[in-house]
């Protein structure tokens, strides 16, 4: 009786642990990719308008993330964002969400990464 009850529970716990480790690995991998491409865009190496396509392409090539949705918000650093002097650099915020295959067949675990970086460039003195 104990074995009948405990064995599935132990298996579920082991699956949970492995799934958590895999989920963490997928999140870390996607975070690294998002950060690299975001910094390239913030440094002007790639246009911000192409950042979404670049991100989706790299994530599809280098990770198992599927159903990728990329939301890019660009703040040009205008005075309206509450900045004290109105001269702060703008920033790019990338919100990437998707899902990775789970250990249990036909299941998927959601992954979400939010990263932001300042846009570098010369700005006039106020």
């Amino acid at each position, binding site marked *: 009786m104990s074995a009948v009850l405990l064995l599935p529970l132990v298996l579920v716990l082991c699956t949970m642990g492995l799934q*958590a480790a895999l989920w963490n690995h997928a999140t870390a991998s996607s975070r690294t990719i998002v950060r690299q491409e975001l910094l390239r865009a913030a440094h002007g190496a790639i246009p911000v308008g192409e950042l979404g396509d670049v991100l989706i392409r790299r994530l599809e090539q280098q990770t198992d993330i599927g159903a990728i949705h990329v939301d890019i918000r660009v703040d040009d650093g205008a005075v309206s964002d509450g900045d004290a002097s109105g001269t*702060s650099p703008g920033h790019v915020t990338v919100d990437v969400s998707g899902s990775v295959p789970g250990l249990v067949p036909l299941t998927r675990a959601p992954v979400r990464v939010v990263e932001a970086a300042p846009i570098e460039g010369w700005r006039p003195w106020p």
Partner: protein
Amino acid sequence: MALTERFIDYVVRLTDPGDRAQCGAMLNRRAGWRRWRSDDAGAAEVAAMVVLAPVIVAVAIVIIAVGRGVDAGATVRSAAFAAAQSAALERTPADAVHAAERMAHITLAGNPSCSAPSVAVDVLDFRPGGSVTVVVSCLPRPITSEAAVAGVDGTRVEGMRVDGAHPRGVVHESGLVDALGSPRVGVATAVVDRFRYAEPVGVSPQVVGQ
């Protein structure tokens, strides 16, 4: 009589229809013994489940808490990095502090694993060619999101006293959750661009900016 001989004798008696009646008493005694042993085994299993069930639940909670803690740690490191970069692009220490706080909160806003974030900016060495250091910390969100909400609001949850000023007042009630709920800290330092001027000295501001 040895146990084996008694068992053989018992089987022979069972197979002999004439001895069935004489075996009735023995059968009754064996049924009672079996019933007693079955009850004892059931009690042992119940006791085992009572002991093991909390352990299994605790292991599941630990797995979830560790996952959230790792995610929160990665988030604060990333937020500190972005905040330090943003601060290093500013011209004055005040703007640097403002930019770092804003960037850290933007990065942490979309992460569900972090709660009660705090940002500290060190601008003592903020000068062209100097450095700016940003320390971002947050608490991994508790297992029960209700506790986090109650911790912020300062209300009571399930009879526990909650410190409204510090959400960790919730997790201080439990040693296990307290250990897993320790703050995650990310520290990042960025070099201030040496060509940025704290003040335009002797040069037209427009010329400096362009």
